[in-house]
């Protein structure tokens, strides 16, 4: 039973790592600020959730589990809030998203599968 749970935890960790790398590539390659924001915001929160749940499933002591849960909740509060504030400020200070697609910027960048 222990082995199964901890291997599920390992799976979560691995998934988190993969999504983290995908998010990183997205932040690097998307064409403008808002799409990058999307990659970073969604990716970050998801990865944090996955990795922390994975760590919880490794079954450390209960004090550690409580700390992990606190960190998880804090990230769930903090991450979307700061993303929201950042995007709002950027928009109000007059940063406009890319509306029409440039030829070279489009190829392989704005992947349709992201949303």
């Amino acid at each position, binding site marked *: 039973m222990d082995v199964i749970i901890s291997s599920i935890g390992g799976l979560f960790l691995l998934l988190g790592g993969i999504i983290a790398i995908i998010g990183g*590539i997205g*932040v690097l390659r998307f064409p403008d600020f808002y799409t990058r924001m999307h990659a970073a915001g969604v990716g970050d929160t998801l990865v944090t959730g996955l990795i922390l749940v994975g760590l919880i499933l490794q079954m450390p002591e209960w004090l550690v589990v409580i700390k992990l849960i606190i960190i998880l909740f804090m990230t769930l509060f903090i991450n979307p809030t700061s993303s929201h504030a950042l995007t709002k400020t950027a928009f109000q200070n007059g940063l406009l998203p890319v509306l029409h697609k440039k030829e070279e910027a489009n190829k392989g960048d704005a992947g349709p599968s992201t949303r």
Partner: protein
Amino acid sequence: MLIAATLAILVVMFLAFIRGYIGPTFYDRILAVNMFGTKTVLFICLLGFVMGRPEFLDIAMVYALINFISVIAILRYSGSFDERRPPGNRKSIGRDV
């Protein structure tokens, strides 16, 4: 698994740093700093488990808080910088990718 996830986080930290360095606008840089901070939190958590002393999660907690505070600080004082562009020029800002 722990080590694989740690390495992945390191790679992502590097990617975020590159975005922070080349980032064309000021907001891209904040984004990169924010992402870097989140990844550092995860990195510290994982590192605690890898080193076998997972009771050091307090540090990760401090990171999460401090990262938030520094992002708020940047947003708060970004209003005081004179980088407002004239309204006629606005359209070109988002487009020069």
